[in-house]
């Protein structure tokens, strides 16, 4: 049975009051629990299902539909580099290759020390700062290889 901290349970219970039925809280609950557990696997899905009185199939349907949910352990810092139009026009493809070489991993993989996971994402809504990447919740724009070095250096 997957553990949920008391603090988180309180957050979830408050969340359930926002909606007339429990199922509506699913996406929010998945975000909160992914924060706590790091990822949502089958065991997690069953836990969520029992919390919200829905079936595990319903949870799995949602977890696999949305790109932000991880189904197994990922790195501490999830580097998401945008590959959509404006970022691509301003060189994000080159930067992606730079990251691949620098971290020695490919898209979808995690560095051996568990620090960085590399992903490509679609438009992040920060096109005036292109090329853009998001690391966990932070946006970083106007990227160059040097800037990327600096940013990654600063991440403990």
């Amino acid at each position, binding site marked *: 049975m997957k553990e949920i901290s008391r603090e988180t349970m309180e957050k979830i219970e408050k969340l359930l009051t926002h909606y007339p039925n429990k199922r509506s809280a699913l*996406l929010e609950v998945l975000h909160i629990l992914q924060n706590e557990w790091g990822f949502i696997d089958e065991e997690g899905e069953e836990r969520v299902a029992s919390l919200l009185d829905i079936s595990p199939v319903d949870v799995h349907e949602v977890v696999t539909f949305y790109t*932000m949910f991880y189904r197994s352990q990922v790195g501490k810092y999830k580097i998401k580099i945008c*590959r959509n139009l404006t970022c691509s026009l301003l060189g994000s493809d080159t930067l992606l290759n730079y990251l691949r070489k620098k971290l020695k991993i490919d898209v979808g993989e995690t560095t051996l020390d568990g620090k960085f996971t590399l992903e490509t994402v679609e*438009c992040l809504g920060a*096109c*005036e700062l*292109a090329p853009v990447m998001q690391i966990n919740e932070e946006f970083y724009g106007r990227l160059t290889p040097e800037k990327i070095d600096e940013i990654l250096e600063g991440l403990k």
Partner: protein
Amino acid sequence: MNLVITPWFGRVRIDEYIKGGGYEAARKALSMKPEEVIEEVKKSNLRGRGGAGFPTGVKWSFVPKETNRPKYLCINADEGEPGTFKDRYIMEKSPHLLIEGAIIASWAVGINTAYIYIRGEYAKIALALERAIEEAYSKGFLGKGIFGTDFNLDIYVHRGAGAYVCGEETALIESLEGKRGNPRIRPPFPATHGLYYCPTVVNNVETISCLPSIIREGGEWFAALGVERSGGTKLFAVSGHVKNPGLYELPMGVSLRELIYNHAGGIRENRRLKAVIPGGTSSPVLTAEEIDISLDFDSMMKAGTMLGSGAVIVMDDTTCMAHVLRVITRFYAHESCGQCTPCRQGTPWMAKIAERIATGRGRKGDIDLLIDIANSIMGKTICPLGDAAAMPVIAICDKFRAELEEHIREKRCPIERE
């Protein structure tokens, strides 16, 4: 003052917002009859700024007046249309403008519960929004008995989790209900059968944010800022090969040339303009010869493109249009929800063909095949994502055909992008 939104940028905390005159419009709205508010919005010619451009007042009037079912407001903050970042600015720099607009809209339609559906990637902004909402509650602008009336309104923030399709109003509703973001078949429409199959209004962040000034200055004032049938100003998000990418608030009807050259500084490094996408990647591309066009809903439609979200992506002559095609088709294939046959099967097909063309592996007949696939998708899908995927393909194949043909003939990219 003939600006509607940007003057409020920077007034993030509620006290700063109130000092600038914030929440006066909401107070005024609650002293009017709801029908009067709707009338004012109709007069303003405010049209949906999420991309579809549907007249907001008319949308509100589709909601049944008397009903024993609860009504809902869903504010669409999913902002996924590539090139668009205007809603992010509003929520980052002036969240109370959105909240005040939500109060006005809810009062007008008889709604007591509103959800802000914000894309999951805007996690930090979601927190800031929640803080602003708390501030509003503490001042009595939300919750029970607002401004001393017996009107109650609760607003909740709800995060998405990475799905462009959830920007489509019925997919947004499905997602809010805790399900896969599968758009629904219409009819029935959200106005009568929306969230939990109750009457629901879904409005874009920018649309809602126009409401305070419409109430404060009047609908006619707002309408006069723009052009016929496209009232007010518009936030244009300019990005790409311009000197000054950023957000520009300009009256509806401003010319695209003026936006690019006078406001966004023209093309970077003094290069030549090659193409412009005027309203997010779903809008048909315009060539450099076609930018003397009025940026309003009807003129853009007449010119065979669309105003959409007002996301202007500028491309100079270093751009390979085959690559643009590849990026765009790849996006829609990635975002298709997978429910209906033409979009689920057609978008990845187009993406595969575009990929081959861009990497010098195109074949004779590929361009016509792309156009045919796109035409087979148009108008046959459950939701507009299919159309959004098809239109740019048809436009690029039409206006840049020679360049695509060169890729196929020469088996390489002539701009040596690859």
